[in-house]
């Protein structure tokens, strides 16, 4: 284990990821180095196919890099066993997906209760109460007993965020969180996401939407698997001021 700087939440150094596709080796990520600080919104920006989601998957511990190191919260995660990676995701990571990935057979509340009960090992009334609180926080009070198919895209994404937050993770990873949403709903979701970046927590958003760079404290530009540019923005604009 290699402890990083005390104010560093994620530190990636010289990370590469390659896939063998038939006889061809695809280099999805090449020598990526980046850092994510707490209380900040970080955006990975790039066109489709540039490796953004692959990068997110490495940080989220659902894929492992070919070379390089990923230090999260002071601990290296590459090379961890599957069970340790599961624990890592349990304790550190909240995922928000472009296509929401709610469990279709569970209601909005149950999607959250599932995580509380099954991942956080909570039980009883505490589970119901916490789930309702989380849904209320994302503006879904009164929609708790709706199945995903009964909710709009924005509502599904809000459930997805509430579900991610239910574990109280230190890092929230969002993969094109507004990709499937209209402008107004997209902004609402961004509000929710950016509000998470406080109290030592961080939000990492990958997107191809350049406008989203304006709400980030730090932006990494990714092209063909490489970080080609890094910009810092000590005073990002508020989501309400954002337009695209």
């Amino acid at each position, binding site marked *: 284990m290699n402890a990083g700087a005390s104010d560093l939440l994620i530190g990636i150094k010289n990370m590469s990821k390659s896939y063998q596709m038939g006889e061809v080796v695809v280099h999805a990520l090449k020598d990526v180095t980046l850092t994510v600080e707490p209380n900040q919104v970080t955006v990975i920006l790039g066109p489709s196919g540039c490796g953004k*989601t692959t990068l997110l998957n490495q940080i989220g511990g659902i894929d492992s890099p070919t070379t390089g190191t990923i230090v999260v919260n002071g601990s290296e995660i590459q090379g961890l066993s599957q069970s340790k990676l599961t624990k890592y995701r349990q304790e550190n990571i909240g995922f928000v997906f472009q*296509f929401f990935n*709610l469990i279709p057979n569970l209601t909005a509340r149950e999607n959250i209760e599932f995580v509380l009960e099954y991942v956080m090992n909570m039980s009883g009334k505490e*589970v*119901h109460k916490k789930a309702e609180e989380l849904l209320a926080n994302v503006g879904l009070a009164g929609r708790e007993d709706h*199945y995903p198919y009964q909710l709009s895209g924005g509502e599904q994404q809000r459930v997805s965020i509430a579900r991610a937050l239910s574990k109280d993770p230190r890092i929230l990873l969002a*993969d094109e969180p507004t990709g*499937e949403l209209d402008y107004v709903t997209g902004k609402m979701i961004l509000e929710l996401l950016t509000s998470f970046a406080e109290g030592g927590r961080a939000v990492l958003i990958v997107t191809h939407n350049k406008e989203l760079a304006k709400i980030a404290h730090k932006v990494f530009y990714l092209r063909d698997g490489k970080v080609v540019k890094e910009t810092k923005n000590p005073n990002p604009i508020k989501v309400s001021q954002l337009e695209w």
Partner: protein
Amino acid sequence: MRKTFLKKGVRELWAHKVQYLLLILVIGLGVGMFASFNNFSNVRWESMEGSYNKSEFMDTQVELRYDEYINLTTLDAILENNTISFMVQNYEYRLVYEVFINHTVDGEVKTTKGQVRGYEWFDDAGNYRDQDVNRPLFYVDDPDHIADPGARECYSERKFSQVYGLGSGDGITLLRDGDKMELKIIEQVAVPEFMYVVLEGNLYPMERSFGILALPIQTAVDLFHGSNGSEIITNDLVFHLKDSDDVGEFNARITEIFSEKGIIVKTTEKEENVPRYLLYTDHENDKATMAMYPIVIFSISGFGLVMALRRMIRNHRPQIGIFKALGVPNRSVLVYFGVIGVVIGLLGTGAGVLFAIPLNYSFNYMVETLLDFPVTDTSSSPEFIMIGGLISLTLCLSCTLIPAMVAMRIKPIDAIQKREGISKKKVGRLGVYMKGVRWMPVSVKLSIRNFLRKPGRSVSTILGVAMSFALFLAFMMAMDSMYALFDREAEGNNWDYEIMMQGFSPENMTADWSVRFEEIESINHGMVVPIELDEGQNPEMGLLYALEDTQGAFNFNMEKGSFKQGEILISNYQADEMGLDVGDQMEFVIPTINETGGYQRSTVELTISGIQDNHIGSIFYTDLATLQGLSNMNETINIVYLDMSEDGKIISVENGLIMIPGVSSVRHMDDMTNMLEDYSDIFMTMVYIMALISALLAAAIIYTMFKISAQERERDYATMKTLGTSIGKIAKLLAFEATYITVWGIGLGVIGAYGLANLMFANADEFAEFNIAIIFSWSGFFIGSMIIIGVVIIVSLLTIRYISKINIANVIRERSTG
């Protein structure tokens, strides 16, 4: 483009090889069972027909009454009668009478009842000849022949010889009316009238207590008269007619010709021969019952195939959409599915050949061991494999049609634009009701909803499991029910020895038995007579037992009323058949003695005192005094039951009893129960086969369904893993679902097993009169449940392995950008 689809079909098979392999095995099992069951029926039929044909089995048999004989001069005169002579093709005359056989069993001399059958085995010139009608059959190709017309040699009936370990070269002693004759056994044979040793009035084969010996007629006559070179006499004739259709007329005429000479004869047509009738009926009934198994297995495999291909469509939906958008014609899509159908059908047929080999072996073992025909043709018939293969191919191609039609209807735009992660699926009515349920853990809710998400598939999976379970349990229940029948036979009888008389004897014949045999504790005299319940075209036949102490010898399981002196107890089978009830008068025909001392048949009447549900429906009970009164046979008996002071068989008593003049047979209760041991090996072989079939069926159906289900929910599982759900927790979810399927499958399987077991017995006319209660087999239930649970656990572990190997990143990334 069609070649591309051909390749895709093959790739699909390879990609899901375990799933398709199981389906192939199930189809193979169907083909194998179809082929081996039919082959078994064929082997059995050919062996029976072969044996009867080789024996030149008679068209009719003419037997003289007990203790009546004619010489050959009289016989010639009768057969030369021009009203019958032109009808006769061939005939044989025999001398048949009963003897005692002394032989050594475990160092102790055992006296057994037997029957001598003297044949004209040598022509006038003293040359050995085969019989023209009802030829005894050998079990070896080149048998040793009897040396000369009066040789002290014999052939012994195969089963009797096997029971007592008698073989070629062994010596036996025949006893008759104080005369003895030492005979050497030359070979074992089957006597055509007793291809299967069943005597009238007996439920089971009687080889243990009934030895049939075939020997030269001169030897038989020498023992009969107690002196050598006596005149040949006969009391038993068998005929082949020029036209078998004339048998009725021939019997009537020959009966009349004998009658004119003051001789009463009994005629028995070929079809009336009891062992032959039982063998053929049994064969027909088994054939009908066995046909069910391949049907069920083919159904399961067809269903599994449709499900697997529908899963394939779901997986390949976008690709099919793209191909269709590119203008690929529907026939190419058909090729895709057709390839899979043909390959599975062909491989299934191949697997069928492999399955048919051990199955044929087991069935042939049954034919050889249980039935033991002299002519046993166990060669396999390839046409059944070919027919089974054609069924399998037709089934596979038909089953590919349904998914192919679905694939052909796919609209390219729908298929291409599908977004995997966005929920569109509805959850069903029950899911709606359940959404407000708070008390239930989410994990339980989720597994229930997963189960209800595809109700058709869930129900089908359960039905598949139920069918697999039912097949095994029904078989076990049928076996247990038969065992229970045997047990009830033993329980229903409360005696140690049953002594049958030759005809009717005076009651006082037993007066000194207790003195001669100190082991006898009590003697219960009785009569058993055949009765007819209706004098119409098809009278119901039965046996009426009447004892001094009827309830002392038989334990009745009363359904209604009670046993009363002077009245009659009937079975619930007869009560249903004849529409009778307690208190009704029952008319029936019994043999009686008329004023001149001759037998006649008279209609008598008794009040029904009760209805019992003992094992055999055609048996009736009254008390001895009542039957003696009705039949005018006071102080007469033809059966005796003994209670002994010692348990088990007492050979010395048996030897003594069988030698008493007038005693026909001596049977110990153990003789009835011991016979079951002979069946245990066959039974266990069948249990193993059925267990294998059941496990394979369950594995195929459960694996197919679990795999499809896991693939469909791949994204859900990937999401759960991403959220930090451990594989153990996911396994717990699967365990819930597996439990529902197992519990429901086994529950419905029990119901199905009752249905199948009933069907097995309902198909069998020979069981109609037996009160066969379908017994629930707890051992079958536990073994079957273990098989199903074992399969579910293995399949669940495989599914867990599959889920643990899901590449989360790939699944989650699907349809995502970046």
